């Protein structure tokens, strides 16, 4: 069970959270102007990263807030947690 740091509540066990998939996918402001291909890209295509991945979590059984995290998919280690709307923190290798 992962240990997740909610930016609003602090360190909590994974069971308090729901997973929200890939982060930083903004819904297009005017979907009608997208062609089918571009819309399908937005709708269905996701990266399947081996390594550091920006993803969304929601503290569903806590404060209810969505936030983002950087997780290394090869180790499940989190590198950072940050609020929705913020840019992912710069990573120093």
């Amino acid at each position, binding site marked *: *069970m992962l240990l997740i740091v909610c930016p609003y509540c602090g360190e909590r066990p994974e069971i308090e959270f729901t997973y*929200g998939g890939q982060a930083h996918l903004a819904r297009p402001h005017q*979907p*009608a102007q997208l062609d089918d291909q571009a819309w399908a890209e937005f*709708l269905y295509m996701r990266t399947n990263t081996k390594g550091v991945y920006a993803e969304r979590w*929601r503290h569903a059984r806590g404060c209810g807030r969505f936030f983002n995290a950087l997780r290394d998919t090869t*180790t*499940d280690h989190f590198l950072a947690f940050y609020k*929705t*709307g913020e840019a992912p923190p710069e990573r120093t290798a």
Partner: protein
Amino acid sequence: MSRAAGGLRTPSGGRVDRTQRVQFEFDGQPYEGVAGDTLASALLANGVHLTGRSFKYHRPRGILAAGSEEPNALVTVSRDAARVTPNLRATQVELYDGLIAESQNRWPSLKRDFGRINDLLSAFFPSGFYYKTFMWPRKAWKSLYEPVIRRAAGLGRAPTHADPDRYAQRYAHCDVLVVGAGPAGIAAALAAAGSGARVILCDETAEFGGSLLAETSALIDGQTALAWVQQGIASLAKNNRVTLLARTTAFGYFPHNFIGLNQRLSDHLSRPPEGRPRERLWQVRARSVVLATGAIERPLVFPGNDRPGILLAGAAHTYLNRYGVRVGTRAVIVTSGDDAYQAALDLKNAGVEIAAVADLRSEVAGALPDAARLAGIDILPGSTVLGTEGDLRVNAVTVGRVHGGKVQAEQRILCDAVLMSGGYTPSVHLFSQSRGKLKWNDALKAFVPGVSAERERSAGACRGVYDLADVLADGAAAGAAAAGAAAGGGARRFMVDAFKRSSESYLGALPQAQAPSNDKSFVDWQHDVTSRDLDLATREGFQSIEHVKRYTTTGMATDQGKTSNLNAMAIVAKSLDVSIPQVGLTTFRMPYTPVTFGSMAGISRGDLFDPVRTTPTHPWAQARAAVFENVGLWKRARYFPRGGEDMHAAVARECRAVRSACGIFDASTLGKIEVVGPDAAEFMNRLYVNNWSNLSLGRSRYGILLREDGFIYDDGVVARTGPDRFHVTTTTGGAPRVLALMEDYAQTEWPELKVWLTSTTEQWAVIAVQGPQSRRVLETLVEGIDISSAWPHMSVARGRICGVPMLLFRVSFTGELGFEINVPADFGLGVWEAVYTEGQAHGITEYGTETMHVLRAEKGYIIVGQDTDGTVTPDDAGLTWAIGKHKADFVGKRSLERPSMKSAHRKQLVGLRTKDPRTVLEEGAQVAAKSGQKPPMELIGHVTSSYASSVLGHSIALGVIESGRARLGQTLYVPMPDGDLEVEVTSPVFYDPAGARINA
């Protein structure tokens, strides 16, 4: 069989109490052991080696090991019909007075087993046998092959009664979790505790000490190994920051240092105290972990290496020194390293005749072999084993001498025990589970921990450190480092007085003569995999160890190949002529040893399995003997039978009552979300397909919510209860996911909108009063709202009922004039009873969800999740009218423009009427355009809802059919086992299509 069965117990020494005799039963025979015995040690003390039949060939098998790695001696221990635990390793079963154990996988008895014929027919059971043989006919799998194979190759049987015991679970946090309480683990725990850390030390056995419990000669810092253990444990026990957990297996290593421990609390007791939990599951979050899990002795692979009486040398050493049991009277030792000489010396001292030590090394030197020579033990260097003899117990072994790679001479030696030692395999299971990377160590001929993935360190034998002084120092260093003690603070040294030994390991099958014995050389004892099976698999083209493993099933038994994996890899590597690291390693999975379902379930069983949600009128419905159904976690009254009615009769009566007079229905389970804020209308516009801007205060509308992919996600009536406020209802099951979706958009896509979302599902009781008489019933009760016909369908208003504040809807899910009374949940039952009393004069009838379903289907109202399945668009469901015409965007709108979503061939919701009005179609039945088809049929849709309609006098059904609306009037066919049923495509609205009744 043995010369003096009673004489196998040594007169003194070990960790058993000879004054406390313990009676037990094995396969119906009474035996006696002593306190401190395991079932295995007690059986061995009675001269019993034969404890099981092998999985596939039913060969007689004996005890191989002394710990959890035991592959053979699986037993069923039972206290009563409900307390039957199969597949326990006899080496881990602690003996108690009255213990009853049975061997497994034999019929009719262990000594005369019919399945033994498999061994004689084994030429017909090569690897992949099941895949090759039982392929055809397919049908025979279920009825014939599988049951027979399962019976023949079975492990123990599950108990037939429910488990009456209690299983506890708890969470724990610590600075340092130390797994394994051998020398490394104890040293680590002492070092960590010494620096003030909170420590948990666990060990799978009953007593701390690990290998030191069988150590009789070594001195640690001037005291005996046992005294050192006892002093260390006593000091840990006194420390209130240390938790000591014996009989506790760390079975799983999960991300972020989350470790599962299974503690067995009462299985070792003759009379477990009432009410005390039998096991406890610990879920430990450790800041740091020290793995001190030791190493497992590696068996040797030679013909006939599985006869009872053939054990690991270290196991024989443990039985002697820890349990005071001689495993035989005349032993041959086969070894690749020095450690077995310690066993030879100790056994000889205890009176066991050592016929010979067959050493695989051509040069045998060193302190321990020298000591053995000095003691008069015959050492045969450059040896190999060519075969063994004996039916139910080994009675001879043939040893060959290898010279220049060839077997030159052979010698047959009589014995009643063969003790083998192929070196050690570090127990890297938990390290590997933690996703640490293993690395191959050529000197040790083993995989050892490489790069860690978690805050974890391995210490001692589990990372290939075998010398006792080094093990202790390694453990102390790991414990100190894990506790975060200052680095370089002078590592603790231990003065150890013991033989220096070389632990040379052997890999793969022993060399054989040119015409080798026909007998099998086992690699995996528990799954009966031989070296020949592995060779065959590589000859048949399997190259990846993952494939060889699955094809031969090596390492896939309940012991997960603890004793077999490395030998299997070595044999495959040799056969493929590649190095072992090239062959690769299979994945270690949890659990390390099997964990009971009880431990996993804890208290989550029976009534506590899931929470139960009940509505405010639940006790009223119970008192009326309502039949309930589960809808998610909710209990909903399905129907209210009267006077012995079955469901069909009750539902028919309830339906007629609603259509002719009035019905009352508890709709409290509907999801309710309060959407509030200056931007509430804008938020609703962006989310739902409907136009909300023109919904005026006091009005409501049927809303549809899509996913971004354009498919219906949920529906429900949405009321505008204020300029900045919407009361959104959702389906019963959809409430949480709709709120989650709303929150997602509100928080992440449109954070600029000022809108707040609150679930009010449980705050409101909802009482639906439906039917032509419903207005008459409510007229006298409702205060502050004019509910005359001037108050049209889909109106909403605040008022009072029975003095209670109320939100009243004029809505209908039945097609009749209807109202839904929303009152605070605490008043739900009182208001319900008042309405019910008032309604008596108007023929009010309580109805349940089944009637609700029939009534809505008669009107063609869909149920999301029943008539839709995540691939249905609003147009498919005939709901295009609900979509706001001039909206530029809403969630899912763009997807509805995709060509496939506008295809005329999509499946559309229609009504289906059977030719025979009494036939009620099966929900889920497929629909075909042509009759009389044979599989594979061309199918164009399926039935989603189907009921008998007593009001209409015929059955009704809804279905989704390709181009359904263009097929009105067509005859279609529902293929069933007894032939096709003819149906006519109709409008989905069967009752009152003009809607006169609803607007009454």
